[in-house]
């Protein structure tokens, strides 16, 4: 598959008189290949939006190499801009314009047929509200309008920064369906979001960023598999005794209320056999698979110090030995 977005060694530092020097992105790499629905995750202030802004030429990178649809960005971005639909954070639209007029102006500025406006309003569910003024829109409706603006060009690459912001559950579901349908039609989608369950549902690949550096990248299943500790939840009548029996069978078992969490299990039948042989009958044996949220929190250090409010800059730096890149292997 060909690379649609390639970022290598992106570095960006902001300087201000008030807060001094702040490294926003620190040697970040990203690879998005054609046809992927690629999730871009990171805690607040980790550099996601700065990365997207740099990629789209809105922020000048200090160093690094970026390409979009094969063209160096931002130098030759105008060559492919007609094929890239993007929203970065929540774009503000002119409140006095109607949704229809907002899109019509963008279409005109970008040389897109105005007939496309009705199509995209329909796609994002704003067809009946297109003639309302934007200032009367809810946050979710503004977000839909933003996505509509990104879709106007009928893009080959869609970059969406927090597209689910402000959407109600039905809206989130519609957005998910929309992205799936776009991907099915060959559109490559790069989507950043905090709603990790959504990312897990719609994305086939993921890149996680923390404090400006990549901490994990690759197919979602493989990233999750990398964090699978082969844990099982076991319910038995005497959990303490069961734990002792499992310890004796070289398994790690921790009592958690009325159940046990057993880790390092390569074959779950061993658990039921060990306990059954001693007359303890297992009423539940459930594999505890890692989800994206737990992996994300672990990778970005957000699990630590639960009793202390976590600050945005408290995220972890990547562990030297464990930057997971399942597309390229493990970086040292």
């Amino acid at each position, binding site marked *: 598959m060909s690379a649609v977005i390639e970022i290598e060694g992106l570095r960006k530092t902001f300087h201000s008189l008030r807060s001094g020097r702040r490294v926003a992105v620190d040697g970040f790499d990203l690879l998005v290949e054609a046809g992927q629905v690629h999730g871009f995750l990171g805690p607040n202030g980790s550099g996601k939006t700065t990365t997207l802004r740099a990629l789209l030429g809105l922020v000048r990178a200090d160093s690094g190499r970026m390409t979009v649809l094969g063209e160096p960005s931002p130098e030759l971005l105008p060559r492919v801009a007609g094929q890239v639909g993007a929203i970065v954070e929540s774009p503000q639209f002119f409140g006095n314009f109607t949704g229809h007029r907002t899109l019509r102006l963008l279409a005109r500025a970008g*040389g897109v047929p105005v007939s496309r406006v009705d199509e995209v309003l329909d796609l994002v569910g704003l067809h009946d509200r297109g003639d309302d003024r934007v200032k009367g829109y809810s946050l979710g409706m503004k977000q839909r309008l933003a996505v509509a603006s990104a879709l106007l060009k009928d893009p080959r690459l869609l970059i969406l920064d927090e597209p689910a912001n402000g959407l109600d559950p039905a809206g989130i579901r519609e957005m998910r369906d929309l992205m799936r349908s776009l991907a099915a039609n060959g559109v490559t989608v790069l989507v950043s979001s905090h709603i990790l369950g959504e990312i897990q549902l719609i994305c086939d690949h993921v890149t996680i960023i923390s404090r400006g550096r990549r901490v994990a990248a690759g197919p979602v299943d493989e990233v999750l598999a990398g964090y699978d500790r082969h844990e099982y939840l076991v319910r038995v009548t005497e959990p303490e005794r069961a734990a002792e029996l499992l310890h004796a069978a070289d398994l790690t078992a921790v009592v958690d209320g009325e159940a046990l969490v057993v880790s390092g299990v390569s074959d779950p039948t061993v658990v039921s056999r060990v306990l059954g042989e001693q007359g303890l009958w297992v009423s539940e044996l459930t594999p505890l698979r890692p989800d994206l949220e737990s992996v994300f929190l672990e990778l970005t250090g957000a699990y630590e110090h639960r009793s202390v409010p976590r600050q945005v800059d408290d995220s972890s730096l990547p562990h030297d030995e464990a930057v997971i890149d399942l597309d390229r292997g493990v970086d040292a």
Partner: protein
Amino acid sequence: MNLVRAELERLSARRFVQLMVVLLVFAFAVTAATTLAGSHKPTASELNSARQQAVDARRSMETTHQECLDRMKDRSPTDTSEYFADCADLDPIRQERLPIAADYLPGVFSFADQAESLLSFLIAFLVLFGFLVGASYIGADLTSGGVVNLLLWRPRRLTVLTAKLGTLLGSVLVLSLLASAAYLATFWVIGQSTGLPGRLDGDFWRSLGAVHGRGLVLVLLASAVGFAIATLGRHTSAALGAAAAYAVVWELGGRLVLEIIDVRRSDQLMLSSYIGAWLSGESRFFDPRLCAGTSGTGYCSGLYTLTWAPALLVLLGLTGGLTAAAFAVFRRRDLI
């Protein structure tokens, strides 16, 4: 071209622009209505009386001039007591204008007499309009993220900014031309119907055209300056603040300080001097040191002149510098 059309639509849809146009129309309507209400068509006897008064006034000027010449001829070389040391100042031929009948027709609007001052009022409004609209057009777009939105579509910063500035200047020029044409036509009709048209000869139209042309240039420069300062400061308020700060700190405070420390020709350091010189063709300012060597030996006005050419150079230089700086900064700026 598509970009310019889109920008034109955005500009015309701005509430602030619409409000300023409404204000312009309102001011225009009030001025026209009060003029109409305060003017009447002069009767034949009023006209005859006014003509006679004008003739008398001109004759009086000639008499005063002649008396001055006679006194100068008779006075001794050491007599410096005369107030009018130079009779040329009294020469009717050298006056900017001579009394005419319209000067003696109270309550009668004369288009030829008042067109220039009416046009100056319109130009002053349009200068303010251009500056504020120029500043708010880019300032609001920068703060609201409109520019970022546009750059996602057209990732060519200089093209986008040029389109915006071009659209602004083109729109302000067209509006100024339309407004001044409607304005002058309305007062011309008032002059024809309930007043006097006055002497509308070639000189009048040439003079009015020159004022109009210079005024339009000033309107465009003010628009570009507002646009440039708001671009540099990222906010509409940057332009408003810079203009207010300049007026208070430099034109008022700075002028006072320069006078206290006796800086020679401090008017030359004030932008308002160049604006005045450009609009009126030339401005005269007082420089007491010009008369330092002539004390007691003859008449010295102590005035020096600032003409339109250097004034235009200064205004163009300032506007060009600010605009170039705005483009240079916008080209490299992080748009967050």
